[in-house]
């Protein structure tokens, strides 16, 4: 009798628990990276707040390593089993939107006004916003002051133009044991990113606001030619290097300069370094590539409305800036905390000042196709197999197929 009562009680308890969880609707959220960042507990706290305010909905957060993250979300969506909301590189948003896999995030004018226009440009296609910016970076030029001094250059006066940059790199290469500049030209996405810093510093662009390919321009030819020229004063074999491989060269004092993001500030080690805006090209001003990653709301999950409300809560100005400061990302918005940060640590200045002059990752429908076309042009010039004008012309033709 006792055993029977226990069994019945157990079954009853399980039934209640089962019915309770069955009532909850699940929001599958895919987050790229791991859960070790200092911003993650803050994100969890916001999710808990949202769940408390939205009874009957539970958020299942899944952390996926960067290498597979975007492919996983996209493949799930293509197979008809999309996550409710997922962290995606903003460059993929147009492709996802074109394939009807995500919904627009319908920002109010007030929400739009909280972002600098170039940042809004990274998520806008066909007049609509397709993602909620979650992470952001700009780039600047790091230089090794000791190598500058050894080469007879003023260590406190970094290059401001391409000519100055080349001359400084040449002096370092000739007068020290180090190479002048770290250059990335591997078959990898950040090769194109590195190049776009130069392109945007010379008034060039890949695609205009009307969706026309404008890559084949004198500005681009100059930028590609300069990339090739830098290869003569860079570390040997830049085609074997992506951006991540340049940091060890900088920390070991083997290169005088390299372009990268604010995260390097904590990682360049004992080098006597400085950081400044990306040097300006002959036809432009100090530019930078603006990269954002966004939370995209997928179509067909059945909880689109709730996913959007969760995304907006996570990315509202207060929650977003707390998350960014925790994770060490470049802040997306001009907030009092950000101004305080810049005042306290002046090495943030080149990254924050660059925002209004930055350009977005080009919005196309085949991002990898674009990346391959541009990288091939750069490699052709860096390897000395083609003149810049010819390489740009071929790349522009290839880009027509992926816009």
């Amino acid at each position, binding site marked *: 009798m006792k055993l029977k009562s226990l069994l019945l009680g157990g079954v009853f308890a399980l039934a209640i628990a089962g019915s309770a969880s069955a009532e909850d609707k699940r929001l599958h959220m895919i987050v790229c990276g791991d859960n070790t960042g200092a911003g993650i507990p803050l994100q969890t706290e916001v999710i808990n707040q949202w769940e408390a305010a939205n009874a009957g909905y539970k958020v299942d957060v899944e952390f996926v390593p960067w290498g597979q993250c975007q492919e996983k979300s996209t493949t799930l969506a293509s197979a008809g089993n999309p996550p409710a909301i997922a962290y995606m590189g903003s460059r993929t948003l147009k492709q996802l939107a074109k394939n009807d896999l995500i919904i627009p995030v319908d920002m109010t004018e007030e929400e739009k006004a909280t972002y600098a226009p170039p940042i809004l440009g990274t998520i806008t296609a066909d007049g609509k916003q397709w993602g909620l910016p979650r992470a952001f970076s700009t780039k600047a030029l790091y230089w090794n002051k000791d190598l500058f001094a050894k080469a007879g250059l003023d260590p406190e006066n970094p290059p401001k133009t391409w000519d100055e940059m080349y001359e400084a790199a040449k002096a370092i290469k000739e007068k020290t044991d180090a190479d002048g500049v770290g250059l990335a030209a591997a078959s990898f996405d950040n090769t194109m990113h590195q190049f776009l810093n130069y392109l945007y510093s010379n008034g060039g662009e890949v695609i205009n606001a009307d969706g026309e390919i404008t890559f084949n321009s004198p500005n681009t030819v100059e930028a590609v030619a300069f990339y090739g020229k830098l290869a003569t004063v860079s570390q040997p074999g830049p*085609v074997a290097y992506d951006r991540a491989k340049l940091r060890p060269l900088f920390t070991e004092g083997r290169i005088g300069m390299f372009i990268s993001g604010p995260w390097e500030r904590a990682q360049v080690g004992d080098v006597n370094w400085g950081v400044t805006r990306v040097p300006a090209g002959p036809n432009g001003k100090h530019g930078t590539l603006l990269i954002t990653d966004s939370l995209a709301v997928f179509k067909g999950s059945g909880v689109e409305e709730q996913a959007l409300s969760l995304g907006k809560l996570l990315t509202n100005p207060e929650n977003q800036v707390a998350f960014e400061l925790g994770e060490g990302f470049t802040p997306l918005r001009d907030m009092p905390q950000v101004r305080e940060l810049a005042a306290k640590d002046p090495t943030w200045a080149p990254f924050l000042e660059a925002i209004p002059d930055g350009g977005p990752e080009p919005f196309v429908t085949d991002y990898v196709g674009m990346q391959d076309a541009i990288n091939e042009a750069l490699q052709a010039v860096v390897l000395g197999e083609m003149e810049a004008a010819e390489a740009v012309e071929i790349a522009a033709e290839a880009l027509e197929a992926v816009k």
Partner: protein
Amino acid sequence: MAVAKTQRDYFPYLLLVPASAVMLAIVAYPLYETFRLSFTNTSMSPNFEYVGFENYEKIMSKRFPEVIARTFYWMSLSVALKMLIGTLGAVLLNAAVPGRALFRVLVMPPWVIPIAIGVFIWGWMYNGQFGMISGMAQRIGILDAPFEFLAYKNSAFFATIVTDVWIGVPMVTLYLLAAMQSIPKDLYEAAWVDGASRMYRFRRITLPLIIPSIATMALLSAIATFNSFDIIWILTEGGPRNATTTMIIDTYKTAISRFKYGEGAARTVMICLFLGTFTLVYFMLLNRLAKRSPHNAK
């Protein structure tokens, strides 16, 4: 009696049902789906249309023929080197030398180490600034400056082959060693009594008797090498300027990186056709060779 006869007739077929079902589910159905997909314009969107032979026309008109030629060149060089070094290694490991067991263990690491880790190590070895190869070459005076092996078309192409050979040789060596050890010892003893030299014994006894094993291993190695993905992807991602883009890398880039599932499926069908034809021709040649062999069973 009639019932018993029926049972006897159908029973063997019943036994084949589970295996056939599994084969249908994991081989035939995916192959059929890939074939069907290759005639569609399937991309990210769940909606698609049948486009006939458009995907095949598209890939044949682009640089795919160049990729096919490169794949066969890469595979031939790699397999030839693996077979050569593997056979040599098997002969040496089969020799009666002290510490033979230790050498047999030492040949294993490239095979035992997870491929990705081994390839990352090779990636660093090929690095010009910090890598061992460039560093040693500079010390002994072959190079006067750091050389990036993965930065140039030719050096990257051969560097990927060297890594593939390093990973593939242990399997060839051990397989051929097993084949050599299955040769009856009395054949060697009789030849030795007749005054046959070591080279003569190898040429007239060992080699003819392990030829079927060499042929089988070469075929298996060729298929594995043809489909080798991780080595090239980790080292070069198919670069520089597509110098190491083989059919499998090209297919991955198309189908997975660019989400062009239809075009990717067409490339996969091409790979199946190439490998199928290659295997067929290979076996036909092998059969012809076996018939001509003096050791062919009468």
